[in-house]
């Protein structure tokens, strides 16, 4: 079990350090052979440089990382780069290069594409962003990921790239698409109530252990549908962390005895009752 995080801060970027060099260096070291998890943080001016500047190095050195099972591309905080500014890329070639990869986490959705997504080992796919483009939603919808157990999508808001509608999300609530799925996260959305209502009685809940509707604008409206659903009651864990539910609704959740996270209650902005998801702040 070896994990490594590569990142380039402002000073090292200014002095000429580049991510492809770091990857090439890592590939030459003996620990590359036992590396199981690789996290790539800031690659320098990530608001204008896409991962294309280092993806080739990663793919070219794939045989130096035979044990790699987890990959995170874009692990940077708002202090390093605004999430909606992170420039991503077509990341399908990376998945193709690492057929044994089990976990793939992506942060940032600008320029992101995952065309013809097929992978026989991937168990976890997470996309953290301020707004997921419809094109990517469709690409994941039509992906062939037979081993996928966890799918976590930050849907976000229109201003940061989400150009879909509820109808585009509904297919994720159908059974059969990802037969082994047990964790579904459709989160950080400003249509969180609509998603909650649609999810409340969706057949897919029968196969899920965890439903994650956190970080969005969930209010009592969506919560009412969830709390009345027998299928929801059977979940092992319901994540509603960061929400706009009332005190009364929080009490009702606690009374269910369910394993539910209702932390981080938000109050609507006083002026115009404006609610926003977490990752747009």
């Amino acid at each position, binding site marked *: 079990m070896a994990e490594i995080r590569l990142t380039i*801060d402002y000073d090292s970027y200014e002095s000429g350090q580049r991510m492809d060099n770091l990857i090439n260096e890592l590939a030459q070291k003996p620990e590359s052979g036992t590396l199981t998890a690789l996290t790539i943080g800031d690659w320098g001016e990530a608001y204008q440089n896409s991962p294309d500047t280092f993806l080739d190095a990663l793919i070219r050195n794939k045989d130096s990382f035979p044990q790699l099972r987890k990959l995170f591309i874009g692990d940077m905080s708002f*202090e390093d780069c605004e999430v909606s500014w992170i420039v991503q890329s077509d990341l399908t070639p990376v998945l193709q290069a690492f057929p044994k990869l089990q976990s793939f986490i992506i942060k940032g959705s600008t320029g992101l594409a995952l065309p013809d997504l097929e992978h026989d080992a991937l168990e976890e796919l997470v996309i953290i962003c301020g707004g997921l483009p419809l094109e990517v939603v469709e690409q994941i919808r039509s992906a062939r990921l037979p081993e996928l157990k966890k799918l976590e999508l930050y849907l976000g808001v229109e201003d940061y790239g989400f150009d879909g509608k509820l109808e585009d999300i509904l297919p994720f609530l159908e059974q059969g698409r990802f037969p082994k799925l047990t964790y579904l996260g459709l989160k950080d959305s400003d249509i969180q109530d609509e998603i909650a209502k649609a999810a409340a009685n969706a057949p897919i809940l029968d196969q899920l252990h965890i439903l994650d509707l956190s970080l969005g604008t969930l209010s009592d409206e969506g919560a009412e549908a969830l709390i009345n659903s027998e299928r929801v009651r059977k979940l092992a864990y319901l994540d509603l962390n960061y929400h706009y539910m009332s005190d009364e609704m929080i009490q009702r959740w606690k009374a269910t005895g369910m394993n539910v996270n209702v932390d981080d209650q938000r109050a609507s902005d006083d002026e115009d009752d404006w609610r926003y998801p977490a990752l747009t*702040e």
Partner: protein
Amino acid sequence: MKQGEQSRAATMLLIGNPGNRRTLGLQEARSRWGLKPAVLVTYLELLQAAEAGGEAISRLLASRLPQAEDQGLLIRLDAPGEQADVERSLIGLGAHDREGDDSLLPLSAAARRTGISAAEAALLPQEKGRITYPGQWFRGYCRLLAMISREVIRLWPKAVWVNAPEEVAVMFDKRACQQRLGACGIDIPRRLASGSAISCYEHMIREMEQDRMNRLFLKLATGSGASGVIAYQRHPLTGAEKAVTTIGIEQRDGMQILYNSGRLKQYADHATIRGLVDWLCGEGVHMEEWIPKAGIAGFSFDIRQLVVAGRACHRIARLSRSPITNLHLRNRRLAVEQTGLSTQHIERAALAAEAAMAAFPGSSVAGVDVLVRSGSRLPYIIDVNPFGDLLYGVLHEELNPYEWQMKP
């Protein structure tokens, strides 16, 4: 004379607002060590006397300390804020249509003739949280400090200030403070246009392009706490802008009213951002690069490091999920030792704070804000707060900040 050397018999004159937590904390600490209570002269009394001129201030001070022996007399300035009458009077004192001694006003050349007249100031309605003429307020405060300072020298030439008035004025003005720190070789964030005055939004954008800075902190030069702070970013290719700020905007009777919001606001609208930047430029603004702060568990943090008599003592990490970490925005706090920083990096931050205080040889107490860069963990000084010793529940060698300062 350093504070630690003061004799137990020392008399302390405290200039502050009555009944607040600072004044009470100080008096409790003196009582704990068996010291006579500090003699309080309130800002309001001083401002009323100031209306009658320097001699009235002199009479007021002398009447409070009739037998003061100048030897061992210690004078402490505390925060003037949080009291409506004091705010209004300081704005009045800073009016351009009034005469005043601006010798303590740092960067007086940069001060613009903005604001309202003394007569208007007297009628200024006070609303909690509303931001009113901060540049003029500061000019008034510097004028008051100059008057007090002059009378103190006349009355008690050997009295010692806990923090010298002229240094309090410099610390309070972020432009002047960073300028002094930079000149003393202290590591500070890069300043936009090397710290030269920025006149308006367009000017700022030009300098950002010139300096290749896309993310900035814009700070009201004379604001306290997080008042008038904007974390601003502009995408160099798309021009998309975002401002995360404590400044709330309200439209009232066709007028725009700015207030200190208890919750962070986010603006992406160009006209709004432009208006805020232009307003900041008019009041006096400090602009520096936004250095990515070290973080823990999704929070980023900075360190408030208290320095007393040259030595770092109480400290606390201020955590936030936003770029703005100041305490009063209900942010979380954490012992610095629990932030994941190594002992070595904590020590480096403490040394940086001590070095920053060395730039103010006439001052012995300040809360120094230290930013620790993510990645390298190197410390940068972002603020020196002359009244920054109010830290709830933070102990050093089992003493609170006031007890520590008053310890014989």
